[in-house]
């Protein structure tokens, strides 16, 4: 996959895809281990990147370790291809790896994401790389790292379920709406990163490979294709996802995750798809149908 020196002469001072080959090898070893133990957090030697930690350095390192010259990269932030973080990372890889980039979910071989999973179902052969701010789902319940590792090792996840119990007792339902914890392969409880819980069901038995990188926390974890990912719940309070009363104001979709957008100074607002590629595709479809009619 890796070809030592890229053809890009003006970037000859960098190795292909920025990271040196030794580092990529280290990251790949961590990735292999992560794939072998779905949901388990593998420590890795997170490197300094030309981007502040907390801005997706974990995801970037995984992407850099994966990219080959023929890959097609898509980067999204909150579902959008055109936000600052997504644009910066996309440009970064255009420069240091000169790979083709795209905004079309179906065309990408690697999708790096922050806070969303594309609406269009991912396919076999695709890889989705999540940027992870906090990899430890138990952190809020147990501050000691030593203890959380033991809890994972012995699958002591009762306390996690107690938090859910407390939410149902207080609010009548699970109050967690993003980073909603999941049980991977019936073994490890994992943070799905701060994606809305709307996206949780997409992770279950996904044909694509899911990789997670936390740069600041120096952890990598993974969900291999076709792996069970269950959102924690109670038998009589099953997991549910968000729903909206109105469809997307732009494309009319009733099945996608909507963002609330304030449109004027008088409190006017509308709901539109957070996935810009998906929304744009729907709008084009509608337009072409109207044209052919």
């Amino acid at each position, binding site marked *: 996959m890796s070809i030592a020196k890229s053809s890009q002469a003006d970037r000859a001072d960098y190795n292909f895809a920025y990271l040196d080959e030794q580092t990529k090898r280290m990251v790949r070893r961590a990735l292999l281990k992560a794939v072998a133990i779905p949901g388990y957090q593998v420590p890795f030697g997170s490197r300094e990147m030309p981007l502040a930690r907390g801005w997706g350095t974990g995801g970037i390192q995984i992407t850099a370790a994966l990219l080959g010259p023929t890959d097609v990269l898509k980067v999204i932030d909150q579902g959008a291809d055109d936000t600052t973080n997504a644009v910066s990372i996309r440009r970064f890889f255009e420069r240091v790896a000169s790979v083709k980039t795209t905004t079309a979910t179906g065309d990408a071989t690697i999708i790096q994401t922050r806070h969303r999973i594309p609406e269009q179902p991912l396919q076999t052969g695709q890889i989705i790389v999540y940027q992870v701010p906090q990899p430890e789902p138990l952190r809020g319940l147990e501050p000691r790292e030593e203890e959380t590792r033991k809890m994972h090792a*012995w699958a002591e996840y*009762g306390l996690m379920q*107690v938090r859910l119990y407390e939410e149902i*007792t207080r609010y009548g339902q699970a109050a967690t709406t993003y980073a909603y914890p999941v049980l991977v392969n019936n073994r490890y409880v994992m943070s799905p990163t701060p994606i809305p819980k709307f996206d949780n069901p997409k992770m279950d038995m996904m044909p694509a490979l899911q990789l997670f990188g936390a740069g600041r926390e120096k952890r990598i974890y993974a969900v291999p294709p076709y792996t069970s990912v269950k959102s924690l719940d109670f038998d*009589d309070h099953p997991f549910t996802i968000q729903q909206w009363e109105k469809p997307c104001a732009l494309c009319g979709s009733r099945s996608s995750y909507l963002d609330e957008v304030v449109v004027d100074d008088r409190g006017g607002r509308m709901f539109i798809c957070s996935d810009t590629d998906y929304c744009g595709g729907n709008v084009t479809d509608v337009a072409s149908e109207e044209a052919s009619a």
Partner: protein
Amino acid sequence: MNNQLSAPEKELLRVEDVTRLYGERAGCLDVSLSLWPGEILGIVGESGSGKSTLLRCLAGIDPPTRGHIMFDSGKGLLDIYAVAEPDRRNMMRTAWGIVHQNPRDGLRMAISAGGNLAERLIDRGDRHYGRIREVARDWLQRVEIDPARMDDKPRAFSGGMQQRLQIARVLISEPRLVFMDEPTGGLDVSVQARLLDLLRVLVRDLGIAAIIVTHDLAVARLLTDRLLVMKEGRVVEHGLTDQVLDDPHHPYTQLLTSAVLAA
């Protein structure tokens, strides 16, 4: 000829020559004892006599310097410090329970009373919210806490209620053995009496064994079948509770029993 008469049941706990040293100082020395299912053993002695140290060793919190503690959680007697840590943790959560003197040590103060009870059921694998609530409500009633207080945090409870909640949290997982460290310690006398009666009834109804550390001989008299008297880390006298209290043989026990009013 009387050996055949001992009930056919097997020991639940066997303690062999347990010694716990803190540097040069001895916490407890060469303590041996056996406990059978349904039995209530008291450990009495003054502060610093080693009774709490012994309890910590027995309860799996603090490994002894020497000696063995063997517990039968259904698979025969196993040395609790020789089994793998996850097995021991599992035993600590399901096969036995600890009632601490200070309820704060045994409760999660930031989680509702019902949540405190739910945790034990969830640990056991229960995943039905409604049923968990039902069982928790039933237990609150058994320890005489108004089920209307179920969703309140324990920090809003009185000391006696907190202690009763802690006891419910221990008993709800149906342990075979319960350790209690001065369970009525910080409570008013009237609250103590109510709690003692509750413990007596629960322990008998559930047929669980208990080891109770106390310096209160009246508590020992009311709750325990057998008694160990400890002094300077050693067991100086042991026997049936009424035997030890009514006909003490060791000078220290005689001093202890004569120092209280009508135990």
